[in-house]
């Protein structure tokens, strides 16, 4: 067969072409804010180890308007990240079968949310009353 001059389409801007890919990119980007939030928490731990004054300075920094705005934004993006996390969790789960029938992927997603809400409630109770 004679060689044909095939045309290769560019991939530039691929993620804007389909709403599914846009949601995927938001999912990936939301993990950045999760990482920043975790890093701030780690800094707090290090400041606690340095003594009371250092820890109080960290608490003061947290109360600044910029920090409050960031944490509200991080909470929203982390919420979205958790939502996408449980959406894709069934894809990483092993092939679970009960009585020969595959376990519905909805059950895994719902189970993940139950675990998330349960853990959140437990942490709230511990922080609030203990």
């Amino acid at each position, binding site marked *: 067969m004679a060689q*044909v*001059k*095939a*045309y*290769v*389409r560019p*991939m530039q801007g*691929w*993620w804007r*072409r*389909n709403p*599914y*890919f846009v949601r*995927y990119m938001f999912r*990936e980007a939301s993990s950045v804010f999760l990482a920043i939030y975790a890093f701030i928490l780690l800094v707090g731990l290090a400041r606690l180890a340095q003594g009371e004054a250092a820890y109080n300075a960290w608490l003061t920094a947290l109360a600044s308007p910029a920090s409050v705005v960031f944490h509200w934004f991080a909470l929203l993006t982390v919420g979205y990240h958790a939502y996408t996390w449980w959406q*894709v969790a*069934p*894809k*990483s*789960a*092993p*092939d679970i*079968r009960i009585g*020969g029938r*595959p376990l519905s992927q909805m059950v895994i997603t719902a189970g993940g949310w139950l675990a998330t809400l349960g853990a959140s409630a437990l942490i709230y109770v511990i922080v609030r009353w203990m």
Partner: protein
Amino acid sequence: MAEPRTIKIEVLRYNPERDLEPHFQTFEVPFTPDTSVLQGLQYIKDHLDGSLTFRWSCRMAICGSCGKMVNGKPVLSCHTFLRDYYPKVRIEPLDHFPILRDLAIDQTDFVNNKLPSVKPYLMPKDEKPVSEGPFLQTPAQLQQYYQYSQCINCLLCYAACPQYGLNAKFTGPAALALLHRYNADSRDQGWEERAELLDAEEGVWGCTLVGYCSEVCPKQVDPAHAINQNKVNSAMDYFGLLKFLMPRGGA
């Protein structure tokens, strides 16, 4: 019978002997509620422009030849109806593949490279003579891989996979789902021979779980599930655990 309406079909045209890059051409095509997108293309070829090039065969969603991008989504054009796109629809060749001509893509990479690379055949531990009868399997063992054996190689999942579009070395959804189909088969003991590819960057780790492959699959194969459960297997293989956990042993 319903009175035919007319729909505008925008088709991506590319003639390798004449064009530097593809362009759209619009056709007016009459259709009824049961006219598929494929039949719309056939109408163009029969009545408006005989040079329009596209692949098709069975017209009933089993041969896997007629995949196209319809309004930007990969679908089987025989399984998609013009009534859902009135008054206008855009048809392009499957994304992420080189265009040979009009809507015909170059499938060579999948057929010659990706598909053979996963060794898509049974590798029993010990061959036995035909006189000893078949390798028996229980219905439960069949269910372990049945879903993944339903792939028709239509390549919609590759058109849905940006990772394949960005790096064509990635083995891709259908081939990796087929790899899992044989690994999950109780008659097969070839997982160690397939492990080098599975564990590689071009194997399951090239997947970032976009998940669109499983959305567009017309046969509910769920390649994203096949690939991502094997990331766990690949990690266990890395730590040498798989040999203990795979009861069927190596080929």
